[in-house]
Each structure stands twice: as structure tokens, then as C-alpha cells.
């Protein structure tokens, strides 16, 4: 009833190709962004920032990165954790080597280094497809973590092997480090996510997004209409790894504060993959829904039983978490391969007719 696209006629191609061609969508997204920037900082407490909002934003970023590669370009990757580690460690190395360089620029530079690493590990994708490619990206995951453990230069020769985010300020405000407030870190993470989501959205609806999807849907036909598979796949690896690298830097500097390689282990890769499967392959919105789901479910499982008046042992809780993920992934792969994003879309289509569905 309230969600009407009828009557919204497009008279220009520019209007038809806008990010959100439908007025209600546009208003909704703007409202959400304004709410996140202007209202949330005043109503959320530190627990919300630290345990819910910041990890959600960090994993959204990583999920968008993997979704560009897997959901749009069709190249399965299990190296997300490794590429995030590159971002985290490189940001750490750079900010300790050049303490005066703006930390936000360092995040971008760390992303660029991750992009180069991503290109290197993307080279096999010209010959290898599907599950076999996933296995070669698994090599990236293990090799990168092994390297960061093995070579002390990467963690500045600290005997503990732990890297910690040093305090850094931007424009006089402490942004990262142990003394920074969760609210500031949240706003930094939010700004990154908003900007790079828009960039991702622009990429996937333009020429590059179309060449990615062409490679995904039918690589032979893509080549015959003039798309160079090697170039396009490597670009997908580069941009995806850039997103993962920035997410890794955010993970270390804005969320964890200090970490060792274990923080970026294979489980991170799997979690991000689950996010895009549950959220929706080939959908930017799906990356957010999946990230929200995977980061919120454990918190829900921790907090719900006490509210209901019984206690759940920690180990049972984590078992239930794994069982739920597994069941849901099977459910989504069978019932709705396009994930939560598709359910959302179906909901919108129903809402167009509601309450007169005839």
C-alpha cells in the first residue's frame, strides 16, 4: 500500500539507471544512513558499539569484498581471512613505520597492498574453476598466516607475536588505540562502509559489473563478445582483496585493538563465505544482511537464555551456533540460493500489491 512504484515514470536513462530508481527505496536508505550517523551515536552504549555495531560493519565490508568476487564474478574464494590479515598487518607495519601518516590513508594503502596480493593469488583462476579454485585460495589463507607468524619483521619482533593498534589521531580526535572511544571508532567504520558500499554499487551496475557477471554466467560467451577473462578475473580479485584488506585493517584497528594471526584464521574465511551465502550471492544488500545475521546470532544466543530465565552452558551455546549456521546454509542452498536478499525482494514485490493482492 505504501510501497508504490506505479506512477513513477522515468523520462531519462539517467533516472532509470540511478542506484535506487524507486523513490521509497531512496528515502529509506537515506534515512538509515542519517540514523546511523546522527542518532545511533547518542542512543547506543559501549557494549552495542563494541560487541555489535563495529564487528557488523567490519564484516559487512569483508562480505561486500567477497561478494564482488564470488557473487558477482563467480570465483569461489576461501582466502578472505588471509587477505584481511594482509590488510591488518600492513596497516600495522605502515603506521608504526610512519606514525605521522593519517591512519585513514593507511587503511586505504593497506587495502591496495592486499589488492596486489589478491592479484597474485588470483592468477590460477584463469585455468582453475569452482571448488578447485577455492582450494588454491585456501593456499593463500594458510601461506599468508604462516608467513606473518614465521617472519618476525611483520610483528616488529615482539616476542609475544601480538600486534596492537597504536594510538593515532585524525584532526585532533583519537581514532584508534586503546584509549579511543568506541563511538569514534564506530563512526570511522561507518564512514568507510558507506563510501565503499556506494563504490561497490557503482561498480556492479556499470561495465565492470556486467563483465564480472558475464564471466560468472557463461565464460565462453563472455569471451566471444570481447571480454578478456584473465583481465576481468584479476580485476575482481584485486578489488575484492582491496575490500577485504580494508576490512582487515578495520578489524584490527577499530574492533580488536590487538591481535595475532589466529584472529584471521580459516574460520574468518568461512564466516564471511557463510555471510554471503545466507545473505545472498550477487547482492550488496545481501552482504549486509548476512553480516548482520552471522555477527548477531552468537550475541543473541548469549543474551537470550538469561532473559528467558535459564542459563545455557558456553559450550552448548557455541554448538548451537554451529548447528544453526550449518542448518541454515543447507536450507538456503536448497530453498533460496539467492539468500536473505532475495527474500527481502520477494517481500517488496508482495508489498507492492498489499493489501489488494489481485
Amino acid at each position, binding site marked *: 500500500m505504501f510501497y508504490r512504484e506505479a506512477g513513477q515514470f522515468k523520462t531519462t536513462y539517467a533516472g532509470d*539507471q540511478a542506484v535506487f530508481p524507486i523513490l521509497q527505496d531512496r528515502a529509506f536508505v537515506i534515512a538509515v544512513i542519517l540514523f546511523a550517523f546522527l542518532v545511533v551515536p547518542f542512543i547506543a552504549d559501549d557494549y552495542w558499539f563494541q560487541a555489535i555495531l563495529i564487528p557488523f560493519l567490519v564484516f559487512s565490508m569483508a562480505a561486500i569484498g567477497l561478494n564482488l568476487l564470488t557473487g558477482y564474478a563467480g570465483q569461489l574464494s576461501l582466502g578472505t581471512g588471509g587477505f584481511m590479515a594482509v590488510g591488518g598487518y600492513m596497516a600495522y607495519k605502515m603506521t608504526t613505520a610512519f606514525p605521522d601518516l593519517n591512519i585513514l590513508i593507511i587503511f586505504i594503502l593497506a587495502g591496495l597492498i592486499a589488492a596486489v596480493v589478491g592479484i597474485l593469488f588470483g592468477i590460477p583462476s584463469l585455468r582453475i574453476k569452482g571448488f578447485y579454485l577455492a582450494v588454491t585460495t585456501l593456499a593463500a589463507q594458510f601461506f599468508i598466516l604462516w608467513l606473518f607468524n614465521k617472519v618476525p619483521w611483520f610483528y616488529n619482533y615482539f616476542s609475544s607475536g601480538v600486534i596492537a593498534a597504536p594510538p593515532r589521531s585524525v584532526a585532533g580526535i583519537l581514532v584508534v588505540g586503546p584509549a579511543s572511544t568506541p563511538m569514534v571508532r564506530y563512526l570511522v567504520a561507518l564512514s568507510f562502509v558507506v563510501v565503499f558500499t556506494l563504490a561497490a554499487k557503482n561498480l556492479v551496475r556499470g*561495465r565492470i559489473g556486467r563483465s564480472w557477471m558475464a564471466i560468472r*554466467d557463461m565464460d*565462453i*560467451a563472455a*569471451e566471444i563478445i570481447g571480454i578478456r577473462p584473465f583481465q576481468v578475473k584479476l580485476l575482481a580479485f584485486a578489488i575484492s582483496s582491496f575490500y577485504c584488506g580494508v576490512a582487515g585493517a578495520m578489524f584490527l584497528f577499530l574492533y580488536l585493538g590487538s591481535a595475532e594471526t589466529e584472529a584471521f584464521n580459516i574460520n574468518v574465511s568461512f564466516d564471511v563465505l557463510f555471510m554471503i551465502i545466507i545473505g545472498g550471492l550477487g547482492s550488496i544488500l545481501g552482504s549486509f544482511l548476512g553480516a548482520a545475521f552471522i555477527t548477531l546470532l552468537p550475541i543473541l544466543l548469549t543474551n537470550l537464555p538469561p532473559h528467558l530465565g535459564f542459563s545455557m552452558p558456553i559450550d552448548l551455546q557455541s554448538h548451537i551456533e554451529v548447528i544453526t549456521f550449518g542448518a541454515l546454509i543447507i536450507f538456503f542452498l536448497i530453498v533460496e540460493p539467492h539468500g536473505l536478499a532475495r527474500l527481502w525482494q520477494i517481500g517488496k514485490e508482495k508489498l507492492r500489491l498489499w493489501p489488494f493482492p489481485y
Partner: protein
Amino acid sequence: MANGKKIGDVLLSVQNINLSFGGVQALVDVSFDVRKHEIFAIIGPNGAGKSSMLNVINGFYHPQGGTITYRGVTRARMRPHEAARQGIARTFQNIALFKGMSTLDNIMTGRNTLMSSNFVLQALHWGPAWKEEKAHREMAEEIIDFLQIEAIRKTPTGRLPYGLQKRVELGRALAAEPDLLLLDEPMAGMNLEEKEDMCRFILDVNDEFGTTIALIEHDMGVVMDISDRVAVLDYGRKIAEGTPGEVRVNQDVIDAYLGVSHD
């Protein structure tokens, strides 16, 4: 049906092509010329090597012997995407659309080779990239108008019926503004009405855009009606070439199609 259109010089010259897969000789010493603006048909019984011939032309197969001269340049071994950049587009016998993408996106993808903005500009959706996108959208819409598929421009092609998918695939090939269009059985599996539509589109493309067309087709009525010249393949060899009228009465062709008694 040469309706006064100008058939020009040789656009594509195929000389003495030999192609074999292991012990199977798919093409033996095949030669023919395709001239500008003509509709050139390749016919032959099943397994005669027609599709292999198209695959050789657009660089998908690499023949063991022979030369291919396109626009006066004899080419070395090349990849399909290089052929596409030189202006050779094609459709497939089994539809090869991007099924997850809308009709419009499929056609826009056909124009990819003509677009050039880099990914940074695209991510920012800035100036040149945005202008380019709009300009190409207009061209894509012209093709959509031409093929009368306005109503399905936002529909994912995987959901379309077969006849429309064939039409969208033709649109995607046309979107690249090719000089040479290769059609692999454009009318396979269609009913009479759809065939008539497709014939009309092919003739219009040839007429309005001046595109040279090389096609494979099994429907003899169609071939004889729309082609300027026909080459007949049988067991990988060319057994006849000429106008439809000449080919129709050629004894070798009749034997190949009807069989011949060995007594």
C-alpha cells in the same frame, strides 16, 4: 534475393582450412569467400563441420592448416575476444546468454568492447564513466526497439521463453556493432511465426546496418529465401557453392542430403 543492395569486396576469405580433433577430420581443405553486405549460408547434413567452421572463424578453434584473411589481413592464431574486438560477433546454437542478467544488461554487455572508462571512474560514478554509460544505454535501447523486446528489458533472461532468448542473443551480438555476424542456427527449434520474425530481423540487420552475415541453418526454405550465396559442407568437405538456385540443382548436394545408392 538480391534486392539491389551492393555486395562489396571480399570481407572474409577462408583458404584451405584443415581442422582435426585427434583422428577425426572435421574440416578438409575448405575454402570460401564472404563478401561485404551479403548473407552467406553454410548448410550441410549433421556433423558436416558447419559449427566447427564458425568456431574457426571467430578464433575458438585453431585450424591445423590454411589461412583466414579478414579485412585484408591474414591473421595469426587468435583468441575469441580478439576476434570480437575486430568486429566479429556471433550467436550460438545452444543459447549462451548470461542467464542471471536482465535483457538490458545482456545487451549492454555486448557493448563492453566499445566502452573504455576505467574502474576508478566507475566506482566514483563520475563524469566520463557516467556519460559513457548513458550514451551506450541509448544505443542499447535502439537495439531493443529494433528487436521489439521493450517489454522484457528488465527481465532476467533465464526466465524468458526460448524464442525470446534467441532474439536477445541476436541483440547482444548486434550491440557490438559487428561488421561480420555469425549466426549458428538462428532458427533452430522455432515455430513458423518465430522463424518469420527472425528472418525479418536478419534481413533488416543486413539491410539497415549493412552487416555481413554468415549463418548456419537447417531449414532449407529459409536458407534458399534469404541467402545471397550458399556453401554446402559434407563430411568436412565443401561440395558446392553458389547462389541458392545453383546449389538446389547440384547433384552432389542432392546426393548428400538424400543419400546415394552404391551399387
